[in-house]
């Protein structure tokens, strides 16, 4: 989910950078002092998640954690992912510095959408377990990220269908893994530390942790 240097055209680069900077600024503005440790830890988790590789067939992909980060951080996903993506770019050459804005959008915007999607799913429902909701969000995070990536590339090379098919096939194993990871994280944190779930923690607390 990292676009390298030299792929994006100038207008796309300028637009995505502007959007990313606004997102990061808004995320920082909304971030409370109590949120910061969680944002830092999730940023670090995303930073290392890319090292966990899944090699299946011809493709080689890595974990994204978009869904988990979205659920736990909300709009703070923007500053968290911006920091991690910047360091990945500088240390490992994952994604180019010129494409940093696009990479932030492709990862953080799906995370924010996941946050709202998760709130929508669990609102007013008397669920026994949060696992299915978490699983769905984990899957949605990767799928949305793939669509955003394909959309960004489409603005530069005009092949959308071919690109999205290739990207989705490559990320198929990741989709399932992310679903399980997100489901497990949400149901575990809900039981032991609902406050770590952040913005959605309060909503989750209306669901009995011991009912499952």
């Amino acid at each position, binding site marked *: 989910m990292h676009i390298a240097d030299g792929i994006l055209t100038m207008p796309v680069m300028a637009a995505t950078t502007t959007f990313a900077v606004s997102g990061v600024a808004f995320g920082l503005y909304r971030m409370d002092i109590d949120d910061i*440790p969680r944002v830092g830890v999730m940023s670090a988790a995303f930073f290392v998640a*890319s090292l966990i590789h899944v*090699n299946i067939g011809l*493709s080689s992909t890595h974990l994204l954690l978009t869904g988990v980060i979205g659920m736990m951080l909300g709009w703070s996903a923007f500053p968290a992912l911006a920091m991690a993506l910047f360091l990945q770019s500088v240390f490992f050459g994952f994604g180019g510095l010129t494409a940093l804005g696009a990479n932030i959008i492709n990862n953080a915007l799906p995370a924010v959408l996941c946050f709202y999607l998760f709130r929508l799913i669990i609102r007013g429902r008397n669920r026994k377990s949060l696992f299915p909701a978490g699983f769905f969000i984990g899957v949605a995070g990767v799928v949305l990220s793939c669509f955003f990536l394909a959309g960004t590339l489409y603005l530069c090379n005009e092949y959308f269908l071919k690109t999205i098919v290739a990207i989705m096939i490559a990320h198929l194993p990741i989709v399932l893994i992310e679903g399980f990871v997100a489901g497990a994280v949400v149901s575990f944190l809900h039981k032991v530390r609902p406050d770590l779930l952040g913005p959605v923690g309060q909503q989750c607390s209306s669901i009995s942790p011991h009912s499952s």
Partner: protein
Amino acid sequence: MKRYALVFLFGLPALLLSLNFSLPANAHNLKLFGSVEGRTISGYAYYSGGGRPVGVTVFLLGPAGEHLGEVVTSDKGEFEIEAPFKADLLLTLNTGDGHTASWQLTAGEFPDDLARLKAPAVASPRTGNEEEPSGRTKDCLFPERGFSPVELQKLVTVAVSGAIKPLQQQINLYRSQLDDYENKIRIHDILGGIGYILGMAGLFIIIKGRKSAD
């Protein structure tokens, strides 16, 4: 409850350390490698985390970025393409999913007799030296055998390039290993990155804390 936070904070680097030693913990980064033997440029593309892009077009570009040829990578991500002339050439490929890589070949890697194949627009003054229609050309070093210096030079070139071929292959192998080594992710980079992120978070807490105290 603090225990959970501690487990989370210290568990992460511990998990990472175990991953680094058990898995090929490399970046998902596309790389391209090329080497020259005679006129032929051969090479391969690879993801530094393992795996090779198959069926992707590799482009050969001239010094001014002009398109000189293209070739599709094999099942092993390998390719071979003929160089049309001696110059600083660039190999580049784009997998279409946001990854791109390139490899620069310098003119010095190509044999001298390739200079004649140079495109007219970028013809070098060396082209004129090849014939050398001076009096010396006629004075053969071995008149009884009829070798001219030019022919002799060709023979020597062929013999030398044949003799150093294994050495050249060895050097190419080392070059690709060196390239791979340079791009390897190291544990201190990972831990440094985590430390940087957590440090930044701490800094934000201090700044925000001061603001709320005011």
